[in-house]
């Protein structure tokens, strides 16, 4: 302090410290005249003008000259002394390395010592420049202010700054004065503050700053929602946010001062994270949105890591801020959304129901007039038959004049947002639809989605089921179902009427215990067995039991009931009361028997009558012929009776007719032809004709000797209508002589048979044997209801 002040005081009086000690006197004088020589110069200049005006004498001149010389000598001596002092001062200043700078009143640099250049970054040739312009140091502006303050207040001002050399200095700005006059300038002296003092003060300031910063940072970290860590250069945790502890279910004790990689069972020890923190971060200062899948105690979380290297004071360790953003829910939600979108897309693509999004179109009167298809699924076409509709309007483009009520319904959904579901028939589509209509998108867009199914088939089958159900209900047949154990599961009105049990009484009971008579229980077991094997029972006539014990004649048809998979789960049984039919059958049988009885008795009476009539008349042969014909007719009736007059099998008719004669001749007749069921009248006509042929053969033809044979063959051919042909051919008999006159037998064959049959009969008395050909349309002789 004292040194600096001395210098500054010395500077007041002396030349610039930078002046060369070897400067010439003239230079020094000039320099003195410029700065300090005002008074002597003034006195010098005034004296010659006074002398000139007063005209001094020689003595005075000499005396004045001597005085002048003495003054010059004294001045020289002083100058020498001053130069010496100046030189000494300069070498002293250079030796002490004092940093000092002198500014004039205008704050121009008058002079400065070399160390100042290192502190303020001054150029060597700065003298005369304005301080503010010449000094690049950041504190220059403040120093200017300080200098002005010092000049104004005429007191020293102090400031601390850090020099460009990195050291701390106290700068004292001292206004320079010349004996009670105004300050002539400002001297700046730079004194490096001592090491302990600097450290102490620096540390205090820094500490305060750090504390404030840390508190600020901590409060930020504490309040953010995201888990956050602050790591030091070794990646040890310096600070962790509360959210971090919460999110990872951990505590400060197990977190702070731990290596990041050691946290939570080394879950963060991920090669990629290591690379980012240790290699990338030092270069880039930030890492953003690094995705980590973290299998924590609370399940897998998806985290985005943001890391940032924090700027620190030089010399201090770098810090790293690590922020975690848990995006699990977001990622899951997005994935779920994508999945559900995909799922719904797939659903709409694959469902059987038609789906479309439509836009309602309105006419000028705001009445819904048409609709436009915006989107449809593949099943759309299947359900309504329309294809290639997207972007088109239903009425306008596609020309489908859907009934107005549909537009009204859709429009109401579009306007109210109330979804509707309905089933309706559309004449335009000629289909039944089941529809779900709901609004989509913004109400103003008037868009609705329609999920619809063509239920025409279902309606049809529903109707069929309803019809079937009503048939079942109204049927006189008992229609019941039972499971595979024989337990009744349904019981219709017919069953109630037939068996006397109400549905309530019957359902749940064993069918065997209800309606199967004890002697028919085996039958039920057999039926159930067959049903279980998938078989059925068709029109099986049996006996069932009424509730009152009466036995009922029934015809049952039983079919297996199957589930959707085709498994037999029970049986449906239709029982028809055939008691009435049975009685009818018995009655008819009785009538036929009675008829037969009467016919036969009548024939017997006629036989007796003839016998009585011709008794003793000598017409025995005639009576015998008559009797034979009568018996032939009777035999034909027998065949019919056996078949209950439902027609007669041709083989039986032919067989019976010839058996009476040929049977005894031991295989001498061959009978061959397809079975045909003959009408009763035809059967009798044919039998009578065959009787005549056989009688003739026995009397005169092939059967009259012991070798002859008869061959009876018939066939059916299509030419073009089915035609029946029968041939009677005798051979091996004695030579045939054609009878001179056609007897009754011939006429019966040729005339009566031909008429009865509606065909042709050709009787030939060939010498080799009698031949008879019968030909008639099959339909003439065949019983109508047979094949």
């Amino acid at each position: 302090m004292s040194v600096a002040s001395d210098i500054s005081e010395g500077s007041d009086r002396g030349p610039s410290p930078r002046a060369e000690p070897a400067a010439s006197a003239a230079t020094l004088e000039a320099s003195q005249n410029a700065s300090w020589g005002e008074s002597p110069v003034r006195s010098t200049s005034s004296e010659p003008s006074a002398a000139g005006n007063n005209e001094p004498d020689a003595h005075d001149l000499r005396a004045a000259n001597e005085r002048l010389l003495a003054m010059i000598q004294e001045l020289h001596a002083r100058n020498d002394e001053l130069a010496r002092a100046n030189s000494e001062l300069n070498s002293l200043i250079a030796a002490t390395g004092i940093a000092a700078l002198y500014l004039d009143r205008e704050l121009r640099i008058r002079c400065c010592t070399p160390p100042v250049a290192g502190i303020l970054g001054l150029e060597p040739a700065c003298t005369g420049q304005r301080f503010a312009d010449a000094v690049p140091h950041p504190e220059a502006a403040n120093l200017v202010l300080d200098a002005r303050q010092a000049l104004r207040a005429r007191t020293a001002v102090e400031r601390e700054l850090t020099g460009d050399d990195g050291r701390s200095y106290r700068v004292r700005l001292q206004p320079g004065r010349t004996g009670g006059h105004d300050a002539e300038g400002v001297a700046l002296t730079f004194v490096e503050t001592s090491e302990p003092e600097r450290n102490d003060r620096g540390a205090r300031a820094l500490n305060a700053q750090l504390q404030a910063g840390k508190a600020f940072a901590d409060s930020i970290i504490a309040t953010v929602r995201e888990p956050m860590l602050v790591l030091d250069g070794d990646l040890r945790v310096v600070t962790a946010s509360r959210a971090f502890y919460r999110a990872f279910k951990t505590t400060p004790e197990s977190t702070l001062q731990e290596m990041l990689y050691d946290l939570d069972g080394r879950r963060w020890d991920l090669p990629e994270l290591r690379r980012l923190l240790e290699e990338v971060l030092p270069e880039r200062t930030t890492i953003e949105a690094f995705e980590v899948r973290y299998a924590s105690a609370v399940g897998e979380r998806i985290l985005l890591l943001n890391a940032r290297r924090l700027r620190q004071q030089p010399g201090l360790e770098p810090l790293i801020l690590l922020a975690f953003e848990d995006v699990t829910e977001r990622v899951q939600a997005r994935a779920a959304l994508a999945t559900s979108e995909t799922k719904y897309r797939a659903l709409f693509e694959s469902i059987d129901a038609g789906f479309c999004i439509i836009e309602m179109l309105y006419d000028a009167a705001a009445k819904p007039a048409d609709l436009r298809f915006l989107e449809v699924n593949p099943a759309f076409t299947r359900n309504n038959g329309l294809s290639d509709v997207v972007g088109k309007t239903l009425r306008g483009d596609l020309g489908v004049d859907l009934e107005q009520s549909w537009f009204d319904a859709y429009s109401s959904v579009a306007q109210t947002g109330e979804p509707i579901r309905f089933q309706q028939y559309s004449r335009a589509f000629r289909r039944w639809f089941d529809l779900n209509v709901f609004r989509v998108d913004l109400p103003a867009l008037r868009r609705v989605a329609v999920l619809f199914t063509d239920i025409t088939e279902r309606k049809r089958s529903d109707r069929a089921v309803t019809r079937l159900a009503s048939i079942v209900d109204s049927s006189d047949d008992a229609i019941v179902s039972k499971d595979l154990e024989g337990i009744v599961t349904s019981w219709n009105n017919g069953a109630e009427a037939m068996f006397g049990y109400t549905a309530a009484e019957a359902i749940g009971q064993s069918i065997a215990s209800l309606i199967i008579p004890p002697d028919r229980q085996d039958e039920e077991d057999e039926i159930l067995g067959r049903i279980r094997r998938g078989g059925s029972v068709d029109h099986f006539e049996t006996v069932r039991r009424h509730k009152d014990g009466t036995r009922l004649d029934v015809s049952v048809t039983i079919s297996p009931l199957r589930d959707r998979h085709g498994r037999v789960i029970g049986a449906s049984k239709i029982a028809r009361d055939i008691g009435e039919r049975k009685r009818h059958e018995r009655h008819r049988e009785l009538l036929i028997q009675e008829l037969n009885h009467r016919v036969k008795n009548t024939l017997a009476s006629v036989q007796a009558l003839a016998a009585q009539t011709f008794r003793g008349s000598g017409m025995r042969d005639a009576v015998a012929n008559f009797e034979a014909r009568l018996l032939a007719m009777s035999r034909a009736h027998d065949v019919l009776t056996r078949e209950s007059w439902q027609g007669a099998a041709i083989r039986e008719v032919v067989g019976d007719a010839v058996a009476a004669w040929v049977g005894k001749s031991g295989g001498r007749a061959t009978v061959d032809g397809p079975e045909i069921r003959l009408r009763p009248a035809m059967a009798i006509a044919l039998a009578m004709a065959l009787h005549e042929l056989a009688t003739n053969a026995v009397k005169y033809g092939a059967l009259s000797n012991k070798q002859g044979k008869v061959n009876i063959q018939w066939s059916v051919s299509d030419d073009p209508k089915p035609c029946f042909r029968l041939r009677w051919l005798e051979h091996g008999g004695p030579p045939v002589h054609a009878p001179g006159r056609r007897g009754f037998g011939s006429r019966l064959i040729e005339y009566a048979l031909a008429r009865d049959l509606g065909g042709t009969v050709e009787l030939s008395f060939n010498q080799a044997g009698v031949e008879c050909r019968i030909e008639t349309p099959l339909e003439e002789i065949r019983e109508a209801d047979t094949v």
Partner: protein
Amino acid sequence: MDDADNLEGCRVLIVEDDAMISMMLQDVLEDMGCRVVAVASRLEEAQRRSEADDFDVALLDVNLRGEHTFPIAEAMLQRRRPFVLTTGYATTILPDSLHGATLLQKPYRRQDLEAALRDARHGG
């Protein structure tokens, strides 16, 4: 009488409601050498006659004016009395108890009658 094949002198009971037929039968049977002991045309009469033992074989019409004579036949079967059933009905009408009985379907030939009578006497 013991010779079954010989119908000479065979005593026959005729149960028949048709007069014409019973007349013819009498003629035919007598031609065969049989002797007709009685002709019954009513059920009670037939019943009564059938219980007598003055005949060797009975010709029994199954239907007498709409009434079956099966009970008579069954009774005779019980007593091992020979009989021939005559009927205009089909054979199927016979009750089980009379299966195996000799049956003549009307109308029949004389030789059929003879065979039936012999048959019945054998069986009886």
